[in-house]
Each structure stands twice: as C-alpha cells, then as structure tokens.
C-alpha cells in the first residue's frame, strides 16, 4: 500500500489522487485546488482526468467546480478506496480489542501517520502495554498488517517504565511519537507521562 496515497495502490494513475480528493468533501472544488490537494501530476493532467471522469458520470461539473457524483454506481467503491487509511486503523483497533490484551496506548506513527511515505514504507505501530503476552501479539499483528497492506509492519511494544526511561534520556523517537501519533486506542498523554 502506498501510505501517502493509498488509493494509488489500486489506481496508480493520476485518477486515484483526484478521486480521493473529491471523495474527501461534498463541496465543489476548482481545478487548481484539486491539483493542490491531489499533490501529484500536472494541472493539465488533472484537467484530463476530470474531463474523462465527467464523461463517464463519476464526477459532475457544477457551479463552483467539480464534485464526486455520489449517486454513481462506482461512488461507493471510490469512497472505500479513498478510505484505506481508515480501514487499516479500524482493522488494527479491532485486532487489539479482540486480543483481550490490556494496552495504555496503541497508535500509528512514522510515514503511515504522516501520510508521506510510499509503497516501500513500513507501517509503524506503537503499543504501550504491561501484558506478558505482548510479544506474541506483536508478531501476530505484524503478520496481519502485512497481509492487509503488503507493507512490513514495525510494531514497537514497550512498557510504561521503558517509556519513562526513553523520555528521561531524551530518546528522539519519543519526540516523533509525540508529534505524529495517530491514536488507535488509549490516551496519547501517556507519552508525556500522564494516564499510564
């Protein structure tokens, strides 16, 4: 999975980011703004994509720009493909919940959290837990993430006392966690020493 633009894993052309951009809003967006938000391709390329999509009815050109035609038979599929990040987070959350393992915090960090990697990026997951079963679960979760995304998972599992030690020695990774964490379950203030 391309962690920056997951839809590109399935629609590798410029069509993917353009559709994902329109799936994120119900408001009409003008060409230059679609180009900015898509973050890929040229403006003329985006124009060609829009023109083609308007022709097949997936996108409507309306007053004020372009919108995804949410009544189109393909619309639900487009929305699902634009929500692969969300689907991954929901699957990880479900996996944690069904494991029965007590955790203080589970979250994504790194490029998958920042949405700035590519198809080679690892999916970085932080788990803070006191459970003695955490190593088995970490291995299991890594395999599941690979199965779901095709990306290797780097699952970091630490205890609260290990976290305290890392904070004490100003380990740079702690700053990364604080900056990037996308909370899947638990409370991110654990990272700053609260709610453990």
């Amino acid at each position, binding site marked *: 999975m391309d962690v920056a633009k997951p839809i590109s894993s399935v629609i590798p052309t410029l069509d993917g980011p353009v559709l994902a951009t329109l799936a994120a*809003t119900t408001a009409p967006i003008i060409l230059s703004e679609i180009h900015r938000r898509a973050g890929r391709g040229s403006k003329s390329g985006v124009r060609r994509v829009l023109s083609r999509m308007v022709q097949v009815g997936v996108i409507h050109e309306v007053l004020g720009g372009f919108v995804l035609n949410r009544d189109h038979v393909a619309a639900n599929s487009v929305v699902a493909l634009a929500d692969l990040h969300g689907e991954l987070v929901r699957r990880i959350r479900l996996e944690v919940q069904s494991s029965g393992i007590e955790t203080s915090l589970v979250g994504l960090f790194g490029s998958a*959290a920042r949405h700035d990697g590519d198809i080679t990026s690892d999916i970085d997951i932080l788990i803070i837990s006191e459970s003695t079963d955490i190593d088995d679960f970490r291995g299991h979760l890594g395999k599941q993430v690979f199965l779901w995304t095709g990306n290797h998972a780097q699952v970091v599992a630490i205890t609260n006392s290990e976290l305290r030690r890392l904070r004490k020695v100003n380990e740079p990774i702690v700053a990364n966690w604080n900056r990037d964490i996308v909370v899947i379950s638990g409370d991110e203030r654990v990272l700053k020493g609260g709610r453990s």
Partner: protein
Amino acid sequence: MSAAKSRTKSCTRADALNRLAQARSFVEVATLVLSADDEAANPGVAASLAVLAGIAASDAACCARLGLRAKGDSHDGAVAVLATVEPHGREMAKDLERLLGRKDDSHYGVTFVARGEARRMVDWAIRLTALAASAVEA
C-alpha cells in the same frame, strides 16, 4: 454561506494531528471541571472549554480532509466548511453550530450557563472530537 465563499487558510496534516490533540485536552479538562464537587466546578468554564474543543476538532477534521480550515470570526463560515468534510461533515457541523451559538455566553460571561447546559455542550464537544478523530484516521 457556502464553503466556497468562506474565508479559509491552508493547513497540513501535522496541523490536523496537533489540533486533534488539543481538542482532546480541552474535552478532558472540561469534563474534569464539570465533575468537581464544589463551586469551583464553574459550568461557564466547562462550557468555554467545550467551545474551544469544538473549534479545535473542527480544524483537525478540515485540515486532515480538505487541507484548509476556516479563518476569521465567521461562525457560519466555519460551520459551512466543516459540513463539506467527508466522512461525518454534516454531523460535526451540527455540533459545532450548537457550540458556536453559545460561544459568547460562555466566553464573555454575559449570561449564566447552567450546569445542565454546560454538560450538554461538553457532550457535543466529545462527540465532535470523536468524529474528527475518525476523519483524521481516514
């Protein structure tokens, strides 16, 4: 007011993550203030924090999904921009509109805020923050 006519400002995913963390903190403190069992449990303070949480959550959802957020003091503009977010834009906009409608009363102390009213406002902020989190995840 349409979203297109609203004043907006570009923002990044990092802004979204930061504003979401702030929204959660505002909600946490608002809940603590409400739960205090003395006169310090000023409902007006909890209400003000709920409004701040709502604004922060709205920014988080808009920055994550649209790459922009409302700027300026226009409540209608902020609600209109948030309503266009997919997923959950309309639901979030409804809660934000309710919170912003009580902003002046809570922030400037013009009108007394009853405990029940403050509790409802905190509930709206909690719901809005949870929906914003799922928009940030998407």
